[in-house]
């Protein structure tokens, strides 16, 4: 349980754990293990983590199937790319004071996230009146609508809505592939989502998943919490999109955000366990790394995914982790307690 007593040490242990991870990355970097290829995969892992954890808010905690998450990612990616491009042009023309690339990236990212959140709100208000299969279909539809509109927008590389021709890629996007920055952004995003889940908001959305009618009879404004979760989820998809847009290739194509992309993230959520952030993070990493390692079989990827999913539904329908959450603090405490001869009486039983 969250009490004053163990709040501070828990935070410190988590921070130390994150620093440890950062040090590992630093070590890998200094020993020359991080070539451009590995960096690319690392960044891919990072935006996949943000995508999957944010989708897990809607699918795992709120319990609604959403198949259009890539659409919000696209909004974030294009908005941030256009913003950083505009800033870059402004600086070149001398109309804007020169600011460091990092600041440009963060401004772009924030704009992308806010734009995606706005779209989440616009889509969420009508869509969340529905539930189950109907919501799945409508989110799928919205995801595709967003992508098709982007494909035609003249300033996003399209030829205008009336021309009916497929658009070009958006090119000349600045590069922001500093692994430490991306790592930090990912950690903050996951941290914020965990904080969201472990507050009255998280409690409320889990209750809504458990029983919609009972929740409203316990005084919850279920529509508000549903739309809020959807918006928060879209916000983080926007951040993931911004990272994706600036990953270093300099181009964005609408075909990067098809329905297949959304499905991939849905698969990751289901595999990791709906309602487990730990599961989401680990499957996001696994399913970003494994396809790279198995490049030779890449055409069979979707086939393998579906076989894994079927097997999973038969043998472990709750996903790899169910709703288990890893907590460094508790794992350490357990170890420490085991080593003591007299077991500690002040055992904390956990919210994690």
């Amino acid at each position, binding site marked *: 349980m969250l009490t004053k007593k163990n709040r501070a040490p828990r935070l410190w242990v988590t921070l130390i754990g994150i620093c440890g991870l950062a040090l590992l990355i630093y070590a890998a970097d200094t020993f020359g293990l991080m070539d451009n290829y590995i960096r690319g995969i690392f960044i891919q892992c990072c935006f996949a983590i943000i995508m999957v954890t944010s989708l897990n808010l809607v699918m795992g905690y709120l319990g609604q199937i959403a198949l259009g998450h890539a659409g919000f990612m696209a909004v974030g990616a294009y908005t941030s790319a256009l913003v950083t491009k505009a800033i870059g042009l402004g600086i070149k023309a001398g109309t804007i004071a020169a600011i460091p690339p990092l600041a440009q990236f963060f401004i772009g990212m924030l704009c992308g996230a806010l734009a995606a959140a706005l779209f989440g709100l616009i889509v969420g208000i009508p869509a969340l009146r529905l539930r189950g299969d109907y919501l799945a279909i409508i989110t799928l539809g919205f995801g595709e609508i967003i992508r098709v509109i982007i494909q035609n927008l003249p300033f996003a590389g399209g030829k205008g809505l009336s021309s009916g021709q497929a658009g070009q890629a958006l090119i000349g996007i600045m590069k922001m592939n500093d692994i430490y920055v991306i790592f930090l952004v990912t950690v903050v995003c996951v941290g914020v989502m965990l904080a969201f889940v472990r507050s009255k908001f998280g409690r409320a959305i889990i209750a809504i998943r458990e029983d919609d009618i009972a929740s409203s009879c*316990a*005084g*919850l404004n279920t529509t508000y919490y549903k739309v809020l979760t959807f918006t928060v989820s879209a916000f983080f998809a926007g951040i993931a999109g911004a990272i994706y847009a600036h990953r270093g290739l300099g181009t964005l194509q609408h075909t990067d955000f098809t329905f297949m992309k959304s499905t991939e993230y849905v698969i990751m959520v289901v595999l990791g366990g709906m309602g487990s952030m730990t599961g989401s993070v680990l499957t996001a990493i696994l399913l970003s790394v494994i396809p790279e390692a198995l490049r030779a079989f890449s055409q069979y990827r979707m086939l393998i995914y579906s076989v894994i999913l079927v097997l999973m539904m038969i043998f472990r329908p709750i996903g790899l982790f169910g709703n288990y959450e890893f907590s460094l603090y508790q794992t350490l405490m357990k170890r420490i307690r085991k080593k003591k001869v007299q077991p500690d009486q002040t055992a904390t039983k956990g919210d994690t």
Partner: protein
Amino acid sequence: MPESILRANQLGISFGGLKAVRNFEIDIKEGELVGLIGPNGAGKTTVFNLFTGVYKPTEGKFYLGKQLMNGKKTHEIVAAGIARTFQNIRLFKHMTVMENVLIAFTKDMKYNLTSAVFRTAAFAREEEEIREKALDLLSVFHLEDKADWNAGNLPYGQQRKLEIARALATSAKMLLLDEPAAGMNPTETAELLDCINTIRRKFNISILLIEHDMSLVMNVCERIIVIDYGEIIAQGLPEEISHNPKVIAAYLGE
């Protein structure tokens, strides 16, 4: 004359051509316990669904105190002060006993998204406070040592109690209990009776009770309303009701 808490005036609802409830009149005073009985399918639960905004009434009006409640959403009605339990228990089964009660406190919690994300002092204080409040409430029902249990793992009788606790946590003035003794054995029913008496004493709350267990109804209710085919066929004191020929006919047939 005590003030009236829940008042319905010519309340009714039709589903298409079917009038499920019509001309329903009720006036529950402060602290009163009224029973609502009737054969299966008479429309008792429909009345509850009307009072909690699950259904919207197509005719008539109902008031909480002096406030008109027609057309309000369920969570608004709960905020105004009507809480209910369900005939088939609707707990959040995979959440802990504590969390089930915390959910009902959520509407009164003030911290916002930012303080939740930054874990501010206000956040910690409020979370701590409502946990204490929830423990207090659970102790009334002797559930405090099971606060960490998953609600779905509680024995049946205690699940019923937890549902009542959750309803009370909304700080309601009017409590609607939908067949709280359904499926209970005599010991559990006796405990429930105790429990109902305790909450009346402690919370000074008005209760409207649907029940089929006549021993319970005759024991605790001050007044009884009988409905059949969506209409009130009799009302009065328990002993009057038990001798009313219309009621006997409705239950046993002509």
